[in-house]
């Protein structure tokens, strides 16, 4: 049989944009040989709304509610990232309590994101929603906390340059402490359901291996990178905010497959709980939740005219490095407002991980990357 005859046997399938497990409107142009993938081209943009353009027309503060909609699971971290970049640009000091509250919110976000992502991953594997619903059950508790603090469950719009918009209501911290105390019980249950399960291990181990060097070269970040064994956590490397005050570890995988990414997330949740415990213990109300300059910014966004210049602020969002690149020309609106979206850039390497695997594997590899289309398409 000649080569062309062989090629003629390839089957081209569009997985998505309307497909149960592409996490939104994501499309994979897959070429199959039997069930083996020989080519995969991701197609994105269905949710594109030119967020950056909107950001360049709005004031710095007015971009916050839009960042909520980037990675709609992690509104708090997105706010945090933008606030960090604006602080860098405008030289705004952050109040002590504001820092603590931000870190608490960011780590709670990490908990809910990782739990939900693991649930989605299992859904992609064909579990009938059970792990996902367990994760959502816990997520609801965290969202209750978010609602009590910010007024909204998902679109929090809470973190501001200089701190957080409002202090948390009385009793909130105790509620958070209770949650942190109870969360490990859920994690144990979750692990009993998943970690040792032979079916899950069959499905995920040695599937979608991402070698260390390639991971670095492809700008992979977050659990995807650390699953491959690269010790790079921006909370440690940059030591932004008050992270250097807390003792926590960075879990690293060894093989770089789907299972490693799953388990790194579980371990990261446990580390996040450690950070939360420390933060909830150390936090005090000696300072306001937002610094005076930040408060002025909240009250009158148009008075904030940062000096000409540029800043790149980044945080370790649950999905990876979330960066905001701001260029100021001295007006109340940013001249350039660019987002380095972790889900988007982590997708670069999808094809390499999927080649030679089965269709079913491609789905769970995509699930293990952890993308949210709101962030990919912006």
């Amino acid at each position, binding site marked *: 049989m000649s080569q062309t005859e062989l090629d003629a046997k390839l089957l081209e399938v569009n997985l998505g944009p309307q497909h149960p497990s592409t996490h939104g409107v994501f499309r994979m142009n897959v070429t199959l040989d039997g069930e083996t993938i020989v080519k995969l081209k991701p197609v994105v943009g269905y949710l594109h709304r030119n967020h950056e353009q909107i950001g360049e027309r709005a004031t710095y*503060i*007015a971009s916050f509610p839009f960042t*909520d909609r980037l990675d709609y699971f992690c509104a708090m971290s997105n706010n945090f990232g933008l606030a960090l970049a604006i602080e860098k640009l405008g030289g705004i000091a952050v109040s002590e309590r504001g820092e603590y509250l931000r870190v608490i919110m960011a780590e709670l976000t990490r908990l809910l994101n990782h739990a939900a992502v693991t649930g989605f991953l299992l859904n992609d594997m064909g579990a009938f929603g059970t792990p996902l619903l367990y994760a959502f059950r816990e997520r609801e508790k965290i969202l209750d906390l978010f*609602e*009590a603090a910010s007024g*909204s469950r998902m679109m929090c719009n809470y973190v501001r340059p200089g701190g957080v*918009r409002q202090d948390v209501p009385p009793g909130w911290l105790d509620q958070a402490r209770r949650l942190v105390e109870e969360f490990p019980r859920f994690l144990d249950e979750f692990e009993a*359901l998943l970690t040792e399960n*032979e079916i899950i291990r069959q499905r995920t181990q040695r599937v979608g291996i991402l070698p260390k060097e390639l991971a670095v070269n492809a700008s992979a970040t977050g659990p995807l990178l650390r699953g491959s064994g690269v010790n790079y956590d921006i909370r440690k490397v940059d030591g932004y905010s008050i992270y250097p005050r807390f003792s926590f570890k960075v879990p690293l995988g060894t093989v770089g497959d789907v299972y490693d990414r799953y388990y790194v997330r579980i371990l990261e949740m446990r580390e996040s709980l450690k950070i939360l415990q420390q933060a909830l213990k150390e936090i005090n109300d000696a300072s306001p939740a937002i610094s005076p300059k930040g408060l002025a910014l909240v009250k009158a966004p148009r008075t904030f005219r940062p000096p000409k210049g540029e800043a790149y602020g980044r945080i370790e969002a649950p999905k990876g490095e979330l960066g905001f690149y701001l260029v100021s020309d001295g007006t109340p609106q940013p001249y350039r407002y660019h987002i380095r979206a972790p889900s988007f850039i982590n997708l670069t390497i999808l094809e390499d991980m999927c080649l030679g695997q089965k269709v079913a594997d491609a789905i769970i590899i995509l699930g293990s990357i952890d993308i949210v289309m709101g962030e990919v398409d912006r």
Partner: protein
Amino acid sequence: MTILGVGVLKGLGVTLKTFLETYPWGRVLLRAVGIPSANGLVTIQYPDERQQHSERFRYFPFLVYDKTPDDLRCVSCKICEQECPPACIHIVGPAKDEQGRPLKAHGRTYPVKFDIDMAICMSCRICVDVCPFDAIEMDNQYEFASPDRFGRLVFDKQQLLKSAEYFKQIKPSEAAEVDARLAAKQAKTAPPAKPAVPPNPSSA
């Protein structure tokens, strides 16, 4: 060395436990064999029961009036219109007479038209943050479903007006803060005629 199948059985155990936890007899059974169990049902049966929202829960904004509906706090300064990220606020005003002089009600200018397109509003609360007069606040009503997109979701001034009492009722602590702020402001601006209070040495 683990035995093949143990992980599978463990998983089955977790789901069975959750299954039993949703029934009273199941909980009795679990407790009888020494497994602590709580009510496993977490669903809120929506139309019959509703979630208890926290005080800060926000949905769409409304306009606050003090005693009578024409005594609204809004002076039509249009800051919220300008700052609204999705640009869903539309204000015409302040009201003027034929000569172009601003009309006043209760000593304040007021908007002729104040529309908010709730289909566009994203409940971000920025209008509340920027309002210098505490004239706009966030409501916690959320059942606004409507079969048409542009008609019933554009709220005009009359629909948006709600009393300060109502605000106090839904958000007591926030209302108290606002009242304190307004009182302080009034104390500062209102009495130029009165003799000044003896200066407080601690205030800078």
